[in-house]
């Protein structure tokens, strides 16, 4: 990553964090429904999405704000969607859990765990058969890797040679169950060879490492036309959804990962390298905060959809 890219990455990560914190506040104030935040996972989202080109497409899940904002989503419209307002990306019908934004290439978000894995192969098949350039990045969690669909998807993509970048954001939690309670191996990539799929696991809290690994994976896909599994090892710093007191979380584990907060790590690095000092970072944070404040203002002022929307867009 160039210094410029690293600065851009920090701004995106700050934007995502501020967006999540605003959503938490709205939820706490009773203005938004339950929402799943990706606090702590910003480097994974930004590192991968920055490695994509405009032609590439993204499928994501319930923990999607990072992917959306890194892809250039307008925070006013994501926030409006979270509040169920008419100018949200899905006209308020999605709410926070399945936001897609076709214009950005973020397609078919599913909040059914594993849903995006079932759909990604088809999206890639379209690209391939219609001769469209670009690959398909499919984000999912370590929990989704427990669903059989994970294997069915990898296997089909391998057998049909589909250009899918599988991104497993291993954040150690599957709602209220720790990853170690649900599988015996340490890395999701252990499954890749038996499907004939290349893979790699990377420190998901180091945005440069993620970006480099994603770039290599994407190059491999573009070259071979074959799928690739990238695991970003990270941590869910907040609860599964809001509110969630995390009483079931081992405080030591949490402290360990808090010290590895990806934003902290990147800030320290940029400051140390003299790329962006503390003052510059503060200005950036203010800018980001203003953008999010404005987004919240927009969303709260945005009307709810009219009641006839209840039965529109059921059928094409």
């Amino acid at each position, binding site marked *: 990553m160039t210094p410029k890219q690293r600065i851009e990455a920090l701004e995106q990560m700050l934007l995502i964090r501020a967006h999540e914190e605003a959503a938490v506040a709205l939820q706490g104030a009773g203005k938004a429904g339950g929402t799943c935040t990706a606090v702590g996972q910003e480097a994974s989202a930004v590192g991968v999405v920055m490695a994509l080109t405009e032609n590439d*497409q993204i499928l994501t899940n319930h923990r999607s704000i990072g992917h959306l904002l890194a892809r250039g989503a307008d925070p006013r419209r994501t926030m409006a969607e979270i509040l169920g307002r008419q100018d*949200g*990306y*899905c*006209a*308020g*019908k*999605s709410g926070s859990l*399945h936001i*897609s*934004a*076709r214009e950005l290439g973020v*397609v*078919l*978000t*599913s909040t*059914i765990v*594993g*849903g995006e*894995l*079932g*759909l*990604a*192969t*088809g*999206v*890639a*098949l*379209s*690209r391939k*058969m*219609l001769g469209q350039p670009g690959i398909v990045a499919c984000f999912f969690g370590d929990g989704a890797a427990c669903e*059989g*669909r994970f294997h*069915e*998807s990898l*296997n*089909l993509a391998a*057998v*049909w040679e589909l250009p899918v970048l599988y991104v497993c954001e291993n954040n150690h939690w599957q709602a209220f169950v720790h990853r170690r309670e649900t599988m015996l191996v340490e890395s999701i990539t252990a499954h890749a060879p038996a499907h004939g799929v290349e893979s790699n696991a990377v420190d998901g809290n180091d945005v440069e490492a993620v970006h480099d690994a994603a770039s290599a994976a994407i190059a491999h896909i573009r070259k071979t036309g074959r799928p690739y599994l990238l695991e970003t090892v990270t941590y869910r710093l907040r609860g599964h959804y809001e509110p969630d007191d995390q009483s079931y979380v081992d405080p030591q584990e949490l402290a360990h990962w808090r010290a590895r907060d990806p934003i902290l790590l990147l800030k320290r690095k940029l400051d140390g390298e003299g790329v962006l000092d503390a003052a510059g970072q503060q200005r950036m944070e203010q800018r980001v905060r203003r953008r999010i404040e404005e987004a919240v203002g927009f969303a709260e002022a945005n009307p709810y959809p009219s009641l006839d929307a209840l039965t*529109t*867009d*059921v*059928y*094409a």
Partner: protein
Amino acid sequence: MPRMTANDALTSALIEEMRRDSRVLMFGEGVATKRRDLLEEFGAARVRNTPLAEGIIAGTAAGAAATGLRPVIDLLFAPFLCYAMDEIVNSAGKLRYLSGGQFAFPMVVLAATGAGWGVGAQHNHNIEAWFAHSPGLKVAMPSTPADFKGLLKAAIRDDNPVLFFTDLALGFTEGDVTDEVVPLGQAAIRRNGRDVTLISYAKTVHTCLAAAEQLADRGISAEVLDLRTLKPLDEETVLASARRTGRVVVVHEASRMCGIGAEVAAIVAEKAFRDLRAPVLRLTGPDAPAPASFPLEQAFVPQPGQIVTTVRDLLGTRDVRDVELAGVPV
């Protein structure tokens, strides 16, 4: 007008639509093996075998449909759809709506069902009502070779996910077949009558027609209505006939509770109420899994004799009460 079997009619719809529209492709377990003719004409990209995994087959279809292709998938037997419910119901059925209309899902899911093969309830389970109950989906279930072809053509051209169930016992029946597209959502009157309307779909349409013959011998004029598409349901044709005859018997192989017959009866009881001259009756398969044993499997399905008895009771007295009319042979 060529005569052909229902199976051939279905194949000819596939071929014509694949010729017509290069976005149409077909895949499933054994599709490329069993449909060599399609494979040869359209190539390995458009006619594909898949790994044995219904969930990802349906998911791939939904993903492809939303992004520019028009897949037809063969999931073989209806009960195997149990592995693909998320992809069909939660993804294809809901993601248009939940995305605020950003995506459409032009895809067709083929599956066979019904008695005739002696293979039991894990191959034979008429679950069409599940999909009628779910939003965003359409459901077709033809009774004639012409409809196997014409409805499938309409299904492939439709921009929504269509479940296309074929009744196993009809596969080798022959009939005249044209190039006509049969629009989804239009029922057909298969026989005109005055005294009673027999409403059905798929194989049991023919059971109703046989019963109507027998009823005619006894001076009773039965109208036979073939729903053809279960969702959207052609309420208008149903109600018009119900109002004309004042008596309705719904017949199907699927089990009774919350089946298509329940819906038809409920619609009639609401909207043709003042024209009804008798209770609305249902003759259905029993609330049991389908057995493999041949005589049991046959007994599972409504028979002409049961329809005749039911209709005569209905006409003989205006208050047939509490007569148990489940699919058990009488």
